[in-house]
């Protein structure tokens, strides 16, 4: 493949009427990569935590998701149970092996398996790396304790979002990624905004195309508010 690579790169340089970029130019581009400057960031996402919570909740609701807010991880099993009951859903769950979700996994209310989703799983519970208030998006990353299949295979997706991980714009979520994964991104980073949908049949909007039909977010106040 080296020859095609060379041919394509040569073709680009020829079209620009130049050879390799100068060393200075290359250094300037490397500096830009390192500085990764942001373009204009929409003002709507600027504000304090209360503003972020309100904006995030409004945005998730606008795309047919639901949002609950609880005071700590201890309250999660009951909150999940209440929501499942309100939707008339069973209490059999596939749960990400993240220790913060252990309280749900051991709770007598639930029948549980931990790990990657199985094809027959109806309800998945996972945990977000960040919430993005700007668009009501949840950022989930793949890893040993956070299987990506939980985000897509089950019909119902419940996501726990630590309140401390709620950010304003995309750029703040990128900053969290860079801090947490300094050696490179995990295999998969998903930004999830509402349940799966399609408009492919006569431009009729339908939820639950291939991914989850329902999306529920539980914001967990994991740090005492100032």
């Amino acid at each position, binding site marked *: 493949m080296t020859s095609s690579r060379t041919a394509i790169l040569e073709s680009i340089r020829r079209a620009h009427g130049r050879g390799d970029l100068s060393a200075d130019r290359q250094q300037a581009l490397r500096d830009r*990569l390192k500085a990764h400057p942001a373009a204009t960031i*929409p003002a709507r996402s600027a504000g304090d935590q209360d503003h972020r919570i309100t904006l995030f909740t409004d945005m998730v609701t606008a795309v047919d998701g639901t949002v609950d807010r609880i005071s700590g991880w201890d309250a999660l099993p009951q909150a999940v149970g209440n929501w499942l009951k309100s939707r008339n859903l069973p209490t059999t769950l596939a749960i990400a092996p993240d220790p913060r979700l252990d309280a749900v996994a051991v709770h007598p209310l639930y029948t549980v398996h931990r790990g990657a989703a199985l094809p027959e799983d109806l309800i998945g519970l996972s945990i977000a790396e960040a919430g993005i208030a700007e668009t009501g998006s949840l950022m989930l990353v793949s890893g040993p304790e956070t299987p990506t299949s939980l*985000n897509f295979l089950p019909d119902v997706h419940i996501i726990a979002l630590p309140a401390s991980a709620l950010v304003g714009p995309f750029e703040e979520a990128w900053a969290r990624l860079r801090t947490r994964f300094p050696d490179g991104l995990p295999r*998969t980073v998903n930004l999830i905004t509402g349940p799966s949908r399609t408009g492919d049949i006569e431009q009729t909007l339908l939820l639950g*195309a*291939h*991914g989850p039909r329902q999306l529920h977010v539980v914001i967990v106040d994991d740090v005492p508010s100032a």
Partner: protein
Amino acid sequence: MQSTTRQFKDNARAALNDATLRQPLQKLKVGFRVRRAQAAEKLPEFETLRDQGRDLKNHVLENLDFYLETFATAVEASGGVVHWARDAAEAREIVLSICRDHNARTVTKGKSMISEEIGLNAYLADHDITPVETDLGEYIIQLRNEPPSHIIAPAIHVQKEMVADAFRATHTHLPADRPLSEPRQLLDEARAVLRDKFLAADVGITGANFLIAETGSTVIVTNEGNGDLTQLLPKVHVVLASLEKIVPTLEDAALLLRLLARSATGQEASSYTSFSTGPRRPGDPDGPEHFHVVLLDNGRSRLLGTEFEEMLRCIRCGACMNHCPVYGAIGGHAYGWVYPGPIGSVLTPALIGIEEAAPLPNASTLCGRCEAVCPMRIPLPKLLRHWREQEFSRHLPPGRTRLGLRVYRWFATRPALWRLATRAAALGLRMMGRKTGFLTRLPFAEDWTRHRVMPVPQGQTFMARYRAETDTPEI
């Protein structure tokens, strides 16, 4: 994909007479256009972001070789493999050989216009590998054995009864008398059928909306989640992407993401924006074991440094076709190749040759709506005019058109004669239509008057009035 662009006129006539196209095209005009306008309205920074998006892409194209090499290095560092394909044949060959290396029998596919461009499905099928499209729209048109008619809504021309027919013909394992009259029933059936395909596939092939040089990530933006299941479940993930999809950093991707969904569907964000970086890591409970990226040139690099370079800023949102009066009248198939609408009319001649695609740059009224909504501020009307110039200088238009233009030029460059001739023509037309005030037939313009009447000219000619009102001396 084989082009039928040469028969554009016949295609367009057939489309205009196709009653099944009226409703979807009408719906598209109200739906997509209104939603885009609302989304743009809700983001005060939208116009600024369009300027920045344009500048960013220009920066990338200027330094494309550097960013491609940076991207390739980052993909390799994360355990992936990068393949470079000069043309469609090379890209098909690369994908086939990856499939063969893994003894693949079926591949699932996320939506990819590049795959359409290189005719991948037919090629894989010819080599005993079954490709399964998983985007609902793409799945429908695959069953109907036809190309997409819109870049983000590929089955927009298909009525739900036609979908039901295709499903009954294909899903023969299901009861013949099952109800399929509602979109929900159709979707649920497709979901169940395709779920099995996702789980069984050996290789998953997706496109890419963006490639991030900094991280070596490929990015797909979808609403259904099919692309995610495609790149998650099989043991091999292959990404097909053209060179110009590169952006330098995550921040640059954020800029374009803010423009893409709003311009395409009017959403603040699509349901799923997913970044893939290398294969699964040690300890990961799921994800593909192999990750390949195929970088396709196929005529793009030679557009750099030409008047068509600006076309490479395109992020494939489809806003230009949603707002185009010509697309709105004839739909996508009439254009005869992969990319319809204004972007197709510029891109198709660039990729398959102006000789093959000469009718397309003329399939425009140059009304400028496409440029007005293009998130990357691509001056589509200007680029269409460039193609018209090239077409003319290569003597491609028919003799009658060339003769007409020559006659026009002869008069237009002789002001005194022009004024005399327009006065005479105005007088002649007034005489012809003196009874009704309308002309039902015009010499040399029968095609135009076949469907409409023209009012007779009123008052003086433009030049005469202009002179009278501005006191300009005769030139």
